[in-house]
């Protein structure tokens, strides 16, 4: 079964060729690897490939099939694209749910100030909301010229990472 995996900007095709327990032959794009792979339920992997020892940790993200991968050196965003995701992707490609109309919070925090109200006209770059987390305030700006059509939070409320805050049209 071949599936696609998106690692940062790269999309690679992966297929398992043979397996005998921890010993696997796997094809990544055009390259064939023989690896000795052990892992646990918490997404910690130990892979030996041509004698090299790799430690990899996969942490599931809020969205299904999305992971953050940690090596000893760096971290990566990962997404598994299987038949189901491909189907969803194709289906939604027509509607263009433009994410630039939506202000989301990149981290958990507390809403300090919303200087706009529904119906306000805003210019690209205008501050529409200020979020505070860990003693640091961040101002989020409108990505477009437009009108505020929805404000989903109120001042003083706490927000989660990736929560939709404000919609602009």
């Amino acid at each position, binding site marked *: 079964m071949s*599936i696609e*995996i998106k*690692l940062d900007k*790269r999309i*690679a095709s*992966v297929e*398992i060729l043979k*397996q*005998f*327990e*921890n*010993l*696997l*032959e*796997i094809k*990544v794009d055009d*390259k064939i*690897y023989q*690896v000795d*792979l*052990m*892992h*646990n*339920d*918490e*997404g*910690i*992997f*130990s*892979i030996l*490939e041509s004698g090299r020892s*790799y430690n*990899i*940790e*996969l*942490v599931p993200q809020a969205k299904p099939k999305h*992971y*953050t*991968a*940690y*090596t*000893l*050196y*760096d*971290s*990566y965003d*990962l997404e598994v694209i*299987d038949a189901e995701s491909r189907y969803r992707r194709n289906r939604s490609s027509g509607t263009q749910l433009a994410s630039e109309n939506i202000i989301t919070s*990149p*981290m*958990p*925090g*507390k809403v300090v100030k919303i200087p706009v109200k529904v119906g306000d006209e805003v210019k690209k770059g205008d501050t529409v909301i200020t979020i*505070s*987390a*860990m*003693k*640091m305030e961040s101002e989020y700006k409108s990505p477009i010229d437009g009108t505020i059509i929805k404000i989903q939070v109120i001042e003083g409320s*706490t927000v989660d*990472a990736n929560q939709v805050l404000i919609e602009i049209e």
Partner: protein
Amino acid sequence: MRKIRKILVANRGEIAIRIMRTCREMGISTVAVFSDADRTSMHVRYADEAYHIGPSASAESYLKPEKIIEVAKRTNADAIHPGYGFLSENSEFARKCAENGIKFIGPSPEVIDKMGDKIQARLTMIAAGVPVVPGTTESVTTEKDAIDTIRRIGLPVMVKASAGGGGKGMRLITDEKDIVSLVRSARSEAKSSFGNDSVYIEKYISSPHHIEFQVLGDQHGNFIHLFERECSVQRRHQKMIEETPSPLMTPELRRKMGEYAVEAARAVNYEGAGTIEFLVDNDLNFYFLEMNTRLQVEHPITERITGIDLVKQQILIAEGHPLTITQDKLRQTGHAIECRIYAEDSDNNFMPNPGKIYNITQPLGLGVRTDGYVYEGYEIPIYYDSMISKLIVWAENRNEAIERMKRALYEYKITGVKTSIKFLERIMDTEDFRSGNYDTNFIEKNKDILLSEGKCPTDCEDMIIIAAYIEYLDRLNVSQTSKAMYPAQNRWKKYTYQKNFERL
């Protein structure tokens, strides 16, 4: 001399635990206080007793003197250790402790007040003969006085609102032609921000080194310094890395600055542990910047090169013991570096990154100390500081210490939230840091190197892709909860290595 048997630690996070560790070693019981957000915080779990003091926001919990004192009285605590931040430099709190017969571990309220007011601190230091940044010693209330003063001091200068803070009413003047307009805008912003247009003027030291001296004073008029800490690696005016000895320091300069640091402490009859911060320019001119009347985040590097437990000294001093350490017995042994681990996205303007900790692997072994407070499964609250841990290494010399720090950062894994670990590792690799040739401008200057993506080669990427693939396949099956390592798709007999890939 009053023996302290129980201490309330009026703080949270790593410093609360660090203080409780010393209490435990001294046989002193500990009381923790916590806000709504901190019920499962490690300091609550580490303490002998723990009491709730209010909602998550600091202003309603950790910054409420009366609530904390109430717990101290209820639990018969002999003393309160304020840690750093929160109420540690709040003279009103120190005063209330005294009124309630509880020993505040730190200097007197009067000293906190005196050193907390920038202009009064400058005046005190000038009186004690300690060099301060050249500038006015009192507020300048008219535009003419301001301009005259600037001409006298000479450019560049910094104009600061007397009543201010947080950068409001502050202007850097580097060019003759801008003097009038910038003085006006500073005064006008000061007026609108604080209702007061008076300013004071200081010589601007560009790209200075931030070097501080640790001092200790007891209740019997003895004062010592425990050498310097170099704190110039900063981002957003917050320290990231500290080391001692400072690569900039000469024995002569150390002796001179150390003497001034002791003079500064003596000038206010300082009790407990304090820090004298200096700005040092590239010609090794140094100027008193401010005094911190509390324990510093970076105190462990001083502990490591002197062998002295500073929290223990604070407690002994608070009990009324005279200092048993004398200046001539103190030695700096080897080299210590501290890296602050922040929960933040260092590559994205150091934006804080609270969230849930997934896994932690602690760096261990020779010369490594970790002071942290997060644990696996812990959700870092959004309400407090983003520093989750401090990594301190020691080695015989600076080069070895840098290599050890690299090794420790390499081993240190905290997953689930973004941290500054990789950014710190890149700092260890910069030419400027390795040569010791850096000042407070270091991160800005090395931005391009520090933000470069040092990602792994394709082979390594492919291994990540393979891991994700297997994870995906195994998630299709039932998930187990064990943390034991098992092979991919644990359905067949374990394959022994006597056989080989050829068998595949």
